[in-house]
């Protein structure tokens, strides 16, 4: 979901649509400044599949290897991913006042910072590390994490499923009954080899 390289040249209707989307994200309006080209190019990207991009992005963010410095997404694109998540879950949410009216982009930045904190800590505890017998770390969860909302569970569920799909693509192993048969066949080969 990276920004295309083509020079953007939106027609007035497109520019109006983009301006409305930026406003919804809490972004500054478009100007003629060349630095706005990235936002325009992203918005005019050739029909990107935002659902696929969102899941891919969330899956990548769920990986401990993910590093903010390697992120392909601009701040606008990151905000757009979170915005999509928000829209997908909005139907289940009753209208309620927002406790703090901070811009969505700020929320995304804070969220990324929190995710980055996990990224920094998790590799320290990875399986390749030397010390295996003792607890590597103990962390205390903040008390307010105890109350999890339905929307938050939706996102966790989506991340878990995206991770499973990514793992399956990476491993290429069979699933279900095919895996059971493959395990039995491999076991039979080992038995034959050792018999």
């Amino acid at each position, binding site marked *: 979901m990276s920004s295309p390289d083509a020079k953007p040249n939106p027609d007035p209707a497109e520019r109006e649509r983009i301006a409305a989307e930026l406003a919804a994200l809490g972004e500054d309006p478009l100007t003629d400044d060349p630095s706005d080209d990235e936002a325009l190019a992203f918005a005019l990207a050739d029909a990107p599949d935002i659902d696929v991009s969102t899941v891919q992005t969330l899956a990548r963010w769920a990986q401990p290897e993910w590093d903010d410095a390697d992120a392909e997404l601009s701040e606008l694109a990151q905000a757009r991913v979170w915005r999509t998540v928000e829209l997908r879950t909005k139907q289940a949410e009753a209208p309620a006042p927002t406790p703090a009216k901070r811009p969505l982009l700020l929320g995304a930045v804070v969220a990324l910072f929190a995710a980055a904190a996990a990224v920094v800590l998790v590799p320290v505890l*990875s399986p390749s590390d030397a010390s295996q017998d003792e607890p590597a770390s103990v962390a205390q969860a903040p008390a307010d994490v105890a109350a999890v909302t339905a929307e938050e569970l939706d996102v*966790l*569920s989506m991340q878990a499923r995206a991770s499973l799909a990514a793992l399956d693509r990476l491993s290429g192993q069979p699933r279900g009954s095919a895996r059971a048969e493959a395990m039995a066949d491999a076991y039979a080969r080992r038995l034959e080899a050792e018999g």
Partner: protein
Amino acid sequence: MSSSRIQRIAVLCATLGTVVVAACDDDADAEGEVVHTEVAASTSATPDGTLKTHEIVPSTPSAEGLAYLRAVAAIQREADDQRGAAAVATLQRGLDLEVPAGLPEAEIVQLELASRIAGLLIESDAAAEAKELLVPMLEPSRSVPLDRASAEALIMLGDAATRTGDDALAAGTYARSIRMMSILRQELER
């Protein structure tokens, strides 16, 4: 979902990610050995993201072990052609099969059977039964095999917990599955 909620999700992921502590013994070479690892921490007031894992090291093959694995594979195939309660009953037969001694691989096939059963139960609005099936197999204090089957079973338990309103269990379980898959991916990418 407001920006504050988005922040909360990220904080939740980050927090659960940090309470989970995984470690695996790469030096395992004894046949059939269940190589153990892992400790984690949580508080009773929060979702429990504790993940204990062990690696399934291939055992010395035996005729009994092969017969068991063949029987489970046949049951899985049989269930492929069934739906609903009939499929659940078939898969349950597989879960009830006596496991031969010295076959650590059975843990994986049992988790796969349990995941399929749980998925079918959830589909038929019997999430409580699915939860009842999976909780003893996956409780945080118990070590689970470092395998895709565990990750999928954890997702199923998360779904069952969500359906039954046990949000803390759901959040902790989803986080454990994500962490499990991160470890598996790291292993694959080595």
